[in-house]
Structure formats: C-alpha cells, structure tokens
C-alpha cells in the first residue's frame, strides 16, 4: 500500500510538471504554426527589414518596430544598468545590515508593481516632464526608456548582488591585504571577478525590457516610423501586437504572430546567452 502511494505521488507530480512544460510547447507550436507561413510568404529578410507596415495593403515589414524595440531597450539599459549595478554594489558592500534588510524587499517590491501602473504613472508624470524639459510630444523613446529603466532594476540589482555576494571572501581579503582601499578592492578585484554574473544580470534585464508591453504602450506614442531622435514616438514589437490584435484577422493576424516569433527568438537568444555566461566559469 505504502509503495503504491509512493509511486502514485511521483506520477502526480510528474503529470503536473508535464502540464507546465506542455503549456510552453503548445504556445510555441501555436505561434509558429500561425506566424511561420506568413514569414515564409513575405520572406524573412523582407519581413524583418521591410520599412512598410500596412496590413490593409498587404505590406508586412516590421523594421520600424525592430528599431523601436532596440532603441527603447538600449535606452532602458543605459538608464537602468548603471543605477542597478551601483545599487547592488552598495547593498553587497556598503549598506549597514539594518538598511539592506529594508532595501532588499523594497527593491523586490518594484518587481511586484503591475506594469499598467508603471505605464499610467509614466503617462501622467514622465510624459509631461519630458515634454516640458526637452520638447517634442513627450510620448517618446526617452520616456519609454525611463520607465523600462526603472522596471529592470529589480532584475539587475538582485542578480548582480547575488553574484557579488557569491565571491569567495579570499578575494576581498587578498586585495585589502595588499593595502588597497575598500573602493579599489571593489572596482579592481570584486567587480571584475563577478563580471559574468553582472553581465548575466544585464542581459536578463534587457530580456525583460524587450518583452514589456503594457507599460510602454501607454508612453511611446506608437507611431510606425523610424525615429530620428530620442524624443520621437516609436512602436515596439510588443506594442505592435498589443495595439492591433483586437481587430486583426487573416494575414494581418498571422503577421502579428510572426512578430511574436521574432520576439520569442530574440528573448530565447538573450536568455541562453545569459545562461551560457553564468555557467562558463
């Protein structure tokens, strides 16, 4: 009887584990089945590098959105990565224990704020601020980058901090024993030694930024055109799907799934690169 119970519980867990994996498999298959034929029709190069997105005329070029995703994501990295890495160094090396026990959960809380709230906050505060300070419509790459820069902070901070804390104590002691100051120890020994973890943190943060939809849909302006400055509105791959899925049908709908494939592949590449870097040691 006992043995039967053991076997049964093992199988139940296996079935449940399988269901989560199969959800992934189903979604993947579904997206590819719906999107791939259109990419094949249009041609990979023409689809990704095509300048014209006019579903009503059968023009499916997503290049303006690719540019939109790349610029907003890079902007988010430029804003979020330095702040995030510095914050992780502060938490790992400088913060008194009482302070880090408050800071750490507070930063995790940033990850718990729904993205629509970020978007709403961005629309009400950041958009007018950018408009007043820098001109332009306010709905822009810069605004999106600021919002996403904040949103990737929890990812960048927690993973960088873990990789700094995981360093052998002997590195720090060895550097201090050479008569290096605490700061010299950090930037010349500890950060280089934790480099792979920090790079992984940055890549995962970028992956998060590329995939974000709701927050940026509200602040980017969503114009389908290649931007000329960071104050111009853009549309990203994700917002393209978000905006048009409500009324798309036929080829148009397939083109949105195809956009999903491009995103899917980009994020897969980023994540496997991050995994490769952390495992390389």
């Amino acid at each position, binding site marked *: 009887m006992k043995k039967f119970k053991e076997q049964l519980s093992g199988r139940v867990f296996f079935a449940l584990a399988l269901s989560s994996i199969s959800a992934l498999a189903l979604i993947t298959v579904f997206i590819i089945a719906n999107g791939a034929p259109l990419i094949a029709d249009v041609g990979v190069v023409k689809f990704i590098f095509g300048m014209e997105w006019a579903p009503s005329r059968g023009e499916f070029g997503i290049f303006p959105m690719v540019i939109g995703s790349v610029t907003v994501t890079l902007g988010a990295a430029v804003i979020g990565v330095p702040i995030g890495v510095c914050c992780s160094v502060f938490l790992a090396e400088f913060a008194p224990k009482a302070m880090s026990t408050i800071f750490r959960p507070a930063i995790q809380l940033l990850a718990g704020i729904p993205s629509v709230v970020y978007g709403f906050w961005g629309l009400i505060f950041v958009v007018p601020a950018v408009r007043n300070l820098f001109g332009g419509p306010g709905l822009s790459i810069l605004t999106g980058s600021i919002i996403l820069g904040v949103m990737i902070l929890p990812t960048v901070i927690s993973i960088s901090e873990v990789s700094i804390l995981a360093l052998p104590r002997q590195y720090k002691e*060895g*550097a201090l024993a*050479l*008569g290096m100051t605490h700061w010299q120890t950090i930037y010349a020994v500890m950060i280089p030694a934790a480099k792979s973890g920090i790079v992984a943190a940055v890549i995962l943060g970028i992956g998060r930024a590329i995939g974000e939809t709701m927050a940026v849909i509200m602040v980017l302006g969503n114009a389908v055109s290649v931007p000329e400055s960071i104050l111009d509105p853009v549309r990203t791959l994700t917002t393209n799907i978000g905006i048009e899925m409500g009324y798309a049908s036929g080829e148009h709908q397939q083109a949105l799934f195809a956009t999903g494939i491009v995103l899917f592949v980009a994020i897969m590449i980023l994540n496997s690169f991050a995994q490769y870097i952390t495992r390389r040691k």
Partner: protein
Amino acid sequence: MTDNVLSSNQRVKLRTDSLNLFYGSFHALGDISMEIYDRSITAIIGPSGCGKSTLLRVFNRMNDLIPGVRVEGEVLLDDFSVYGKNTDVVSLRRKVGMVFQRPNVFPKSIYDNIAIGPRKHGIKRTRQLDEIVEHSLCQVALWGEVKDDLKKSGLELTPGQQQRLCIARAIAVEPDVILMDESCSALDPESTMKIEELMFSLVEKYTIIIVTHNMEQALRVSDMAAFLMIGQDRIGKLVEYGPTIGMFSSPKDKRTEDYITGRFG
C-alpha cells in the same frame, strides 16, 4: 638552512603589549605581550582554535573585517601604533603583507595579479611595472616557469605555483612584514619545501610571521616560536615564547612540552 640563532642585538620590529582581543563578548586573546624581531621568522603554534590566526591578523588589522571585534592594549610596528586613533589601515597593510591559507590568486593574468598592488599605489609606467613583476617573480623563483605566460590566467597555475604567485603579489608592494597564515597547509610536500626555501631567502629583507600546525615546519624554518593555548577561562594566552631551538629542546612549560611532543592538539 638558517642557524636558528638570533644575534642578541636584533632590532624589534613588532611589539604587542597586554594585547586583548574580543569578538563581541567573547574574549579570544588575553594579555599577550611579545616582541617580534626584524628580519627573523617567528612561528605561532598551538592547538586548533587557540587564536593563532586571530593573533596573526592583529598585525595587519584583518580582524577589522569581522563585525564586533575589539582590541585593547598596544601593538607597535616600529614606532607606529597599529591600533592608534589616527592609524591609516590601508598604509598599515602596505607595510604588513599577508599570504593566506589557500592560494587566493585573483581571476586575472599572472602579470595583473602582481601589478595590481603597485598600480593602485600609483605606479603607472609600464616599464616600471614590468620590472616589478619580473623582480617579484624572480624572488619567489617563479619567473623561469611563467615568463612566457604572463598573460595567462593565474588560476591556470598549479596550487603550489599559485601560492608562490600570492607571495610575489605580496612582496610587489614592498612590505616590511609578511604574515603567512598556514600558507603551506593546502600544498603538497614538494611545494611546501619550495615555499620554506623561499622563506629563508625572503627573511634577508622581510620580517616573517607564520602560523603553522606543522611542528616540523616550525622547527625547520623559524627562529622564534610562540606557543598559544586556550586556558581554563577559554581565553587564548601566550604560554611560552622564545628561540625555537630552545623551546623544542627544553620547553619551559609542561603544556608546551605536551603539545610539541604530540601528546595533544
């Protein structure tokens, strides 16, 4: 090998006077007064947990890294108060280098491992750095083995070579004193022998203090020996201190005799 005899006019390099050390409320070292002589090898010996490493780490204030540590009494390096109010710990550590139990080569090239200290102390010229690297590696007898691989990661060396690289890194910043915290315990006998030979050549320029569990090693290399032990009150105390030969041939204290003859510890 050295003759293990100190000339009577040897200068005092380091001095502790009624040194007491506490980890929070735990009294780890009690009333330690000793003089360490310039350009000699002093061995700190004693059973596990008696505070040998703690005492060693007093001299470069490495214990400062542990929260709640408190030191009372006087520690002098030449005339410089190690625990003085205005003491700059960073410049103290430039004068008192340290080699750890396990080789802690940084994940950098062999060259950078050695150049990092001098660089941070303001030496920027490549020629000068090249000289320091070569000179330091020569002093630890590693130059011949690695001179063609200076760009290779230090982590690719054998543990014995890594430990010699760590010694080279320590002497590259030209300290007065080198602390060695069981620096051979993770190494094979052959590497241990090389490092012991190294100590004999280094002692001509530096004051060396070692912590060791290995009685033969203490007898082989050290001029002076300090025997530490935990007393009834759980406080680490200096039981006996004197020339190594004398201590090993005719220990004054019964506890020293019991320990060095291997009856406990």
